[in-house]
């Protein structure tokens, strides 16, 4: 049987609260992610495209734009991440399929869930809903299919999910200091020193931006971001290390943290199928997520979707 293989990657946005804020926190207090002054509430959704409702892209330096409808680009003018997950390579039966190049990939309304241990523990995030859409460059939907947590009862509330159902939608492993993530996001390496330098460079870029910013609301938001970017080591940790030699803080550490091994045979009823896909088969979706930038509220995703054709 011939299959269409779509390889996709890019930055996604996820404006979610972080521990120890509760998972329904809308603005952020005790974690390190915030809906800042002038920004909409945290929506905790995974956004692969910049024009999805709920996206708010920040400035990373002088000359950047901000807002909710910036065009797809890998980087802002000052080098910060910009949202946009697209097909980077496509093939049918091993032969190139250029008509899918740069197609837009979306996980519609997806959330990376754990409910602080109620649903799953130790941040082995459960992704739900899983509703995958591929559109062409003009936004015309080519194929779309939803996966069910429980095929026998698609409307089952998530709260009733059993352990095997959860396992199917969780990553297989988590890895710190991943070279894979560093390479994808353009970091020279995955070492802690590099991660700390990256945060310091971002901070300096924001300080320059603050010096040129007059609007009080924007200034207040930048001050909070700069304060957070100053925290690159666990300064409070008096039990490990010495001053300026404390363990790296998660704000920097997570830049190369990898959640890998999602491998889900998407098997709900396809809602759009313009490509002649075989709807009787599951469509294997493999991907990793990582490179979480708590200042930008973005991460990186890379994966493949294999769609059997009739």
């Amino acid at each position: 049987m011939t299959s269409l293989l779509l390889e996709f990657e890019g930055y996604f946005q996820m404006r979610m609260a972080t521990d120890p804020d509760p998972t329904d926190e809308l603005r952020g207090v005790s974690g390190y992610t915030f809906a800042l002054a002038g920004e909409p509430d945290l929506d905790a959704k995974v956004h692969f495209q910049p024009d999805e409702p709920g996206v708010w892209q920040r400035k990373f330096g002088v000359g950047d734009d901000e807002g909710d409808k910036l065009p797809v680009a890998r980087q802002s003018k000052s080098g910060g991440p910009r949202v946009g997950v697209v097909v980077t390579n496509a093939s049918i039966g091993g032969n190139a399929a250029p008509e899918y190049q740069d197609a837009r990939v979306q996980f519609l309304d997806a959330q990376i869930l754990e409910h602080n241990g109620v649903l799953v523990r130790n941040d082995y995030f459960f992704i739900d809903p899983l509703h995958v859409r591929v559109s062409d460059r003009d936004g015309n939907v080519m194929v779309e299919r939803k996966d069910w947590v429980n095929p026998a009862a698609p409307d089952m509330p998530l709260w009733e999910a059993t352990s095997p159902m959860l396992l199917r939608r969780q990553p297989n492993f988590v890895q710190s200091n991943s070279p894979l993530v560093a390479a994808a996001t353009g970091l020279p390496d995955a070492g802690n020193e590099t991660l700390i330098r990256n945060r310091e460079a971002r901070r300096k870029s924001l300080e320059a931006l603050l010096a040129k910013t007059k609007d009080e609301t924007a200034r207040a938001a930048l001050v909070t971001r700069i304060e957070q970017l100053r925290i690159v080591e666990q300064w409070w940790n008096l039990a490990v290390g010495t001053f300026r030699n404390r363990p790296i803080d998660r704000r920097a550490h997570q830049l190369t943290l990898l959640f890998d091994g999602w491998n889900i045979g998407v098997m709900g009823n396809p809602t759009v199928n313009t490509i002649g896909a075989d709807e009787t088969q599951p469509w294997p979706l493999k991907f990793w997520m990582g490179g979480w930038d708590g200042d930008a509220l973005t991460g990186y995703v890379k994966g493949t979707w294999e769609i059997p054709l009739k």
Partner: protein
Amino acid sequence: MDALRLAAELEHGLMCQYLFAAYTIRRYPYECFDYTWNRRRKTWEKTRVLSEAELERVRRWAMKVTLIARQEMEHLGLALNLLSSIGGTPSFSRPNMPQKDDYYGAANIKLTLTTCNLDTIKRFQIFEKPEEIDDVDDPKQIDDWCKRARIAGGPAPELEEAPPMVTGGAPHIDQYGVPFADVQQLYTEIEQGFVYLTRSLGERELFIGSQGNQVYGGPPSPLYGSMNDLNQYGLSLIPVTNLQSARQAIRMIIEQGEGAKAPPSYRPNAHFCLFSDIRMEMEADKGKLAEAGARRVVANPLTRWQPDLTAPRREFTLIENPDTLRVAELFNQCYEVMLLLLLYLYSDQVKTEEQTNSLMDAAFFPFMTMFVRPLAEILTELPANDPYDLSKMAGPGFELAGDVVLFPNIEQTWTLFQERIDALVAGFRAVTARGKLAPPKGEPHLVRWAPRHDPWRELPSQSEEYVVKQREELWARVKAETATFHEEEGRGKVSEEILPSLPWLRLYYLRQNMERLGVNWKDNWMNVGRTA
């Protein structure tokens, strides 16, 4: 042991006060406005009290106060680790609030729950005052201590060999017979006690407790390096097994709190200095931003009169609004279950490493973060009494009905947890009864659980279409989930016409989380997909 129990009680009391204050700080954009009910026009009128930039500033205060409160949790944990290390019985008992001014003698530690305003921050600043500071109103002294490090620094002096005054006759005696003028002095006494007893008894005879009956993170913890390592959340919890670790724990407490003996570079992060910073910011406009930035929460909101209260009646408010009262009771129950979970970790009941890790997870994530905190926050947005009076909101009273104790048998303990969680499920169902969501008859302006109209829609930073869509989706999901009502919800049908308020939707979210926990808690907690 008495001194350590007192230290734990103090840390617990301070933590509750700091948390209460932090939860009263505004942070939603709609809180840039105050709403008052115009009885003649029968409309809500709004007045801008904060700009969005000011809201961001007060959020930064909340972040600092919350961090300090978390570190007080660490200090409580360290005090209990110290107690457990020498065979003591850890306890979460503490007096309810408010208490009379001299409850702790001359130590100047007032037990009371108040909003985060200038007076409150001044009180907190005094709690954390290092002995080296004579006058907390002298900015130069504070600047020297916090910023320039002129006064202190250098290694800690050697301790005297004289035995500590652990029994009677002290100038500032309290019911424990432990003399102390402030928190720093109490810990100095405790450190001297450890040194003296180690020298007189020997380490082996003194440190007889099991490390398995302590709570800690970092390298010694099996969770080290994972996302659930406690030490990554602004904490630094260590196990206590000998004199060196005991002294390290004590030193960490006073380094983080008062900044005493801390390296000068650490000082700006000491609790005393952080509170001093907030105070200075508040005083810059004579406390106006502080007043505007705090929710209108009454002092010491209680569900009932508690028999151990010693403060005058005027210092506390009994919550009379029936809906708010039920939420406040739920908060107290969740708080108690969280303490029970923590107490179990300190107990000598047989438990495997997996059970220990699971229970530690349960106490911190989710009980502390998903139930105790959200309920506390929700309470500060609910009226204490008159639903039309938004100048008197409720808050978390942190009430304890007595000592927090475990059953001696492990199976009874599991059953105890299940029973408590079942009761909480019933409680959440009762407060989120969907059939009762409509406004009371004849009062269409009252939206149940948040008696204000929906101000979100009028703010430039909030997309009206988006916010409304989000809430409509949530509400649609709630309505679709089940057509049947649980017994605790009573009779009725889901109202079609009303869009529930944010506090109600948050309560419903908590209810779902608690229902999930309640399904055969013991088995499910140990079996939740992949954990490592």
